[in-house]
């Protein structure tokens, strides 16, 4: 297998882009990535997206976007794995280039959510859960996370307020990210008093949905001989679990996160202590804790401690959500995984203005689909 390098990145702000269609957003991100890579064309396009069929009544968006960006004729597919669609597309692209079958590709995520009625968006997001055995019983995507959080508080004895540092960190980091959805400082009092959504999860535990697209250009690293620095993908892992939370033997353990992280660590030959930053999937504050635990940064039930002790801040032991995370950069579901990859590249290039992790060499991204049924972990290195 060939080592794969990332030579270009592009992103649109995450926002309510009422004036821009899915196609316009996708095009913006692709053009930015191609221009950043200084290349006019690629051999293939892989696009992560979850909701185009449900909300836009448009499928077949691989060919649709390829034509729009002037790449008519190339291989192009949509990859879907709920909120993990972005990282799933990335893994498809990385494997295609690593295998030798494809010599260059654009991998992107694109999502358009805010044109639809909020009820339709909620219903569409719920399709990530089990329709017949979870959703008809009144469980939305949010309430499934609420069940997990309730059980977590019960088993490990944490208070809701102990999760505040996760949301505050994401909001603080987003202040320096011009592409973030929210530029609103958050403190503990505002966190505690936020309106309830599905108890114990309130509005300040929950990520902000939005429209957006993010893209990268990948090529075999061997093409870049002599250039420096090279940012390459040194680990990629993917795993699954049951769709329904109630079917899991251990509902408080993200087994797919553990499996995919171990797979990525093994490939990369690194461990949690070697990482300079971790873009994790804080769709809800509870997911930040579970992701840190399953990826080897905290013992079971001890994730909140890393927040309370400041270890997740820039300059801490393991900085997370350095550009705002899902909470504040925003969560354009199928695009989120690609925003994470773009942000890790920014950090490794030293371009994370305002929240740069000093001397960052190795960064990880973890993208979660549904309430943990699909999880992908990627490790990037600058050398």
């Amino acid at each position, binding site marked *: 297998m060939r080592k794969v390098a990332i030579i270009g990145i592009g992103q649109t702000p995450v926002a309510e882009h009422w004036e821009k269609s899915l196609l316009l957003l996708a095009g913006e991100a692709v053009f930015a990535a191609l221009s950043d890579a200084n290349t006019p064309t690629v051999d293939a396009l892989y696009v992560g997206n979850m909701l185009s069929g449900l909300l836009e009544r448009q499928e077949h968006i691989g060919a649709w976007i390829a034509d729009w960006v002037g790449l008519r004729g190339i291989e192009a597919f949509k990859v879907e794995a709920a909120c993990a669609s972005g990282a799933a597309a990335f893994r498809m692209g990385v494997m295609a280039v690593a295998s030798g079958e494809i010599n260059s590709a654009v991998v992107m995520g694109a999502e358009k959510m805010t044109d639809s009625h909020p*009820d*339709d968006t*909620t*219903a569409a997001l*719920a399709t990530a859960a089990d329709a*017949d*055995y*979870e*959703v*008809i*019983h*009144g*469980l*939305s995507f*949010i*309430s499934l996370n*609420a*069940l*997990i959080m*309730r*059980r977590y508080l*019960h088993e490990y004895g944490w208070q809701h307020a102990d999760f505040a540092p996760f949301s505050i960190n994401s909001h603080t980091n987003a202040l320096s990210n011009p592409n973030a959805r929210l530029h609103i400082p958050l403190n503990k009092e505002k966190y505690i008093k936020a*309106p*309830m*959504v*599905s*108890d*114990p*999860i309130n509005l300040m535990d929950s990520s902000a949905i939005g429209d957006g697209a993010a893209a990268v250009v990948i090529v075999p690293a061997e093409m870049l001989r002599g250039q420096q620095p090279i940012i390459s993908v040194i680990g990629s892992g993917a795993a699954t679990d049951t769709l*329904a*939370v*109630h*079917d899991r033997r251990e*509902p408080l353990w993200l087994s797919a996160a553990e499996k995919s992280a171990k797979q990525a660590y093994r490939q990369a030959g690194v461990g949690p202590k070697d990482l300079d930053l971790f873009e994790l999937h804080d769709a809800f504050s509870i997911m930040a804790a579970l992701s840190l635990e399953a990826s080897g940064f905290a013992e079971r039930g001890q994730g909140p401690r890393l927040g309370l002790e400041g270890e997740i801040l820039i300059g801490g032991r393991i900085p997370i959500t350095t550009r705002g995370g899902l909470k504040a950069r925003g969560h354009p579901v199928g695009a989120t995984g690609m925003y994470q990859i773009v942000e890790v590249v920014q950090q490794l290039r030293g371009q994370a203005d305002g929240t740069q992790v000093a001397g960052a060499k190795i960064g990880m991204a973890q993208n979660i689909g549904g309430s943990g049924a699909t999880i992908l972990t990627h490790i990037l290195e600058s050398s």
Partner: protein
Amino acid sequence: MSTEKFSQTAYQQQLGEGKLMASHCPACDASYLPPRPMCPQCFGAQMEWREMPTRGKLAAFTVVHIAPTAMIEAGYGRDNPYCSGIVELKNGLKLSAQITGVDVSQPESIKIGSSVQAEFVSRGENDDMRAFLIFKVIV
């Protein structure tokens, strides 16, 4: 034995008759909800229906203030929150369900571990009529 026997429709129909039925693999002595026509442990297809206990305890619950579409249509939402949760049946099997008998303004009045009893209800009209399983907290 035809595999269609263990369909979602058959499960629903039995709920309508007031029975919570799972498919059971005699070889592994394991029960499955949703009912599966094939055992994912031994790949055996000699499944049989088995009636599940209707008593259990709460494994997790949440009071939902921002409701999904189906629940808004059923009259719930911001002004009328409801409770849903995961129930662990007497035999250890878990499933999701709406939880009734809860003062939603005081969710702390129930606890993980509270006892619950199944109730079989139907919602919708005519062709859209559908049997539901809900669980009521027993005080």
